[in-house]
């Protein structure tokens, strides 16, 4: 595994419905740094994040992971990536445990229930593992979705509005989690409408303007 991962944007541009959203974005992110993407509604924050994940095709320019375009190394890149979008990716009719175990399996890992319980307790959901996701509140669902981050060995976290629907303790918890991730040499790209401090780490700011 590369000890010093980097993520760089090279003249990145995006067009939606024939209208250019942003263009010519250059940026480089090194281990321990985080990129804070800001912009008005419709400025293309989510579009940018989906491009970074490889979900959307890149309209112009390139995104490089460790110096190689992400679309040339899909599998290796996806091992390093953990994406959290607007959707929680939780099946309502399955229990919290079943959801977490399946996500871990997708990443190629076997998750034991005690480990899952530890993580859930850390996220303020002790003993909720056997509950159906349907019976959780919005904020609790978000916490379960976020607990995947704590279980993921990925180096690059791409988080789209991760603080939405979270209470104050939840926001603190997530900020600490991102801080610890960066301290271990991880990278993070996130969008948020609330300004949140991640430890003592100043973000690299990327403002999207049309």
């Amino acid at each position: 595994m590369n000890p010093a991962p980097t993520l760089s944007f090279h003249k990145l541009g995006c067009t939606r419905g024939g209208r250019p959203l942003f263009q010519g974005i250059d940026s480089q992110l090194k281990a321990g740094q985080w990129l804070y993407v800001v912009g008005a509604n419709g400025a293309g924050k989510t579009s940018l994040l989906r491009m970074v994940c490889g979900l959307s095709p890149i309209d112009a320019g390139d995104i490089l992971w460790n110096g190689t375009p992400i679309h040339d190394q899909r599998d290796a890149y996806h091992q390093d990536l953990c994406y959290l979008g607007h959707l929680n990716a939780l099946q309502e009719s399955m229990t919290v445990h079943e959801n977490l175990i399946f996500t871990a399996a997708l990443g190629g890992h076997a998750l034991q229930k005690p480990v899952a319980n530890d993580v859930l307790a850390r996220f303020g959901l002790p003993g909720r593992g056997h509950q159906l996701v349907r019976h959780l509140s919005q904020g609790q669902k978000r916490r379960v979705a976020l607990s995947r981050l704590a279980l993921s060995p990925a180096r690059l976290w791409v988080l789209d509005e991760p603080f939405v629907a979270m209470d104050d303790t939840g926001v603190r918890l997530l900020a600490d989690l991102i801080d610890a991730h960066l301290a271990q040499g991880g990278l993070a790209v996130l969008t948020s409408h609330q300004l949140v401090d991640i430890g003592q780490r100043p973000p690299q700011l990327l403002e999207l303007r049309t």
Partner: protein
Amino acid sequence: MSRPALQKLSTGGVMRAALQREIALALRQKGEVLTPLVFFVVIASLFPLGVGPESALLLRMAPGVLWVSALLAAMLSLQRLFAMDYADGSLEQMALSATPLGLLVVAKALSHFLLSGLPLVLMAPVLGLQFGMEGRSLGILMLTLLLGTPTLSLIGSIGAALTLGVRGAGVLLSLLILPLYIPVLIFGAGAVEADAAGLGVGGHLSLLSALLVLSVFFAPLATTAALKISLE
């Protein structure tokens, strides 16, 4: 905060986890497993009511009617194959995971066969009796359905992926998929008819198997490509 150490899972383990999840999800919505089966029984039972009780005619029609009913029943639950995972974002996570999407597609098609194809195979002889079919013909009918329904699930997954997130997906799905089902229908029903006429069925069964092998190889590729387009 330290990150818990996790054990590695083999590719087979990932497949097993995906299959278990699909089956558990389907069994929690029992209607989903029962609807195609009840549909199959109802459609196949309507024909004797419609065309009258003349047994020679019914026996002549039986293979075609049973195969068409099975084909329509297997198509009923296709639309749900990816829809739930698409709606809640799980499909995105699958596309972004370290596991190749094609493997997960195979797991989904397999679970579709186990939960909607296999019950049809088991129910077919009961309906066959209704049409006056006998021992050997019933055996051939089950065998052709057993070879044919996995192909239907695999080809159907392409249509389900293509119509993901489209309004009126159900009708569009049938229009896309039914023409592709024609070869399976011809050789499936043809085998039973050929046997009834005293001809060999080896050729029909070989062709059904060939269709199955082809769709095992190519359908997951096409479905994966279609899913990636739907997710953009």
